């Protein structure tokens, strides 16, 4: 069966510090991968998605970047965190499909607090 791992679960970082959140998927190959941010416990904002190694699409220009160094690894980074980067970050994957029928599966999330 497929599983998705996301870590750390919680993170407190000072303003101006770097960030690296990692997400890995097991039990599948060639997944679509996604990073979402959820602010104030409500709506989900798609930040980045990837359909293959080294292929990153950015939905919202901002202080963050993403990389996919391996097929099942997706990393969210920042060189200098801002207070506004605080939030709940969710990684997700879905099977590679030309029709998009499949649901996405989510990790448990990372609560980032920038102080």
């Amino acid at each position: 069966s497929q599983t998705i791992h996301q870590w750390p679960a919680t993170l407190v970082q000072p303003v101006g510090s770097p960030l690296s959140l990692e997400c890995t998927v097991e039990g599948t190959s060639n997944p679509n991968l996604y990073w979402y941010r959820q602010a104030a416990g409500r709506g989900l904002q798609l930040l980045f998605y990837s359909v293959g190694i080294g292929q990153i699409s950015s939905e919202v220009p901002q202080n963050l970047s993403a990389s996919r160094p391996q097929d099942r690894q997706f990393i969210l980074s920042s060189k200098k965190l801002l207070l506004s980067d605080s939030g709940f970050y969710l990684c997700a994957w879905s099977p590679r499909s030309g029709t998009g029928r499949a649901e996405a599966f989510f990790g448990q999330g990372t609560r980032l607090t920038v102080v």
Partner: protein
Amino acid sequence: AQSVAQPEDQVNVAEGNPLTVKCTYSVSGNPYLFWYVQYPNRGLQFLLKYITGDNLVKGSYGFEAEFNKSQTSFHLKKPSALVSDSALYFCAVRAVGYSTLTFGKGTMLLVSP
């Protein structure tokens, strides 16, 4: 473009009563529609999806949803609510051929004993 609207920030229902959480969507072409549930400080859990076929879709934990193409709606329903159903519910849409899901802003369901 694709979008989802969840018009209610919060839905309150008594345990044992039926519940409905509303969702409307907008896409170009045929939609794939999904419902997810989120418990505090956790990731989203998939409940059910509509791809094609029967307009009434059954999912996990006794939930079901009805696809209505003319009203562009996909409301989530359950005949008898449980206190443990209290959570944040998200509707999502993906247009055919798209890679990304677009989520609504979420509806908080509160089931009182």
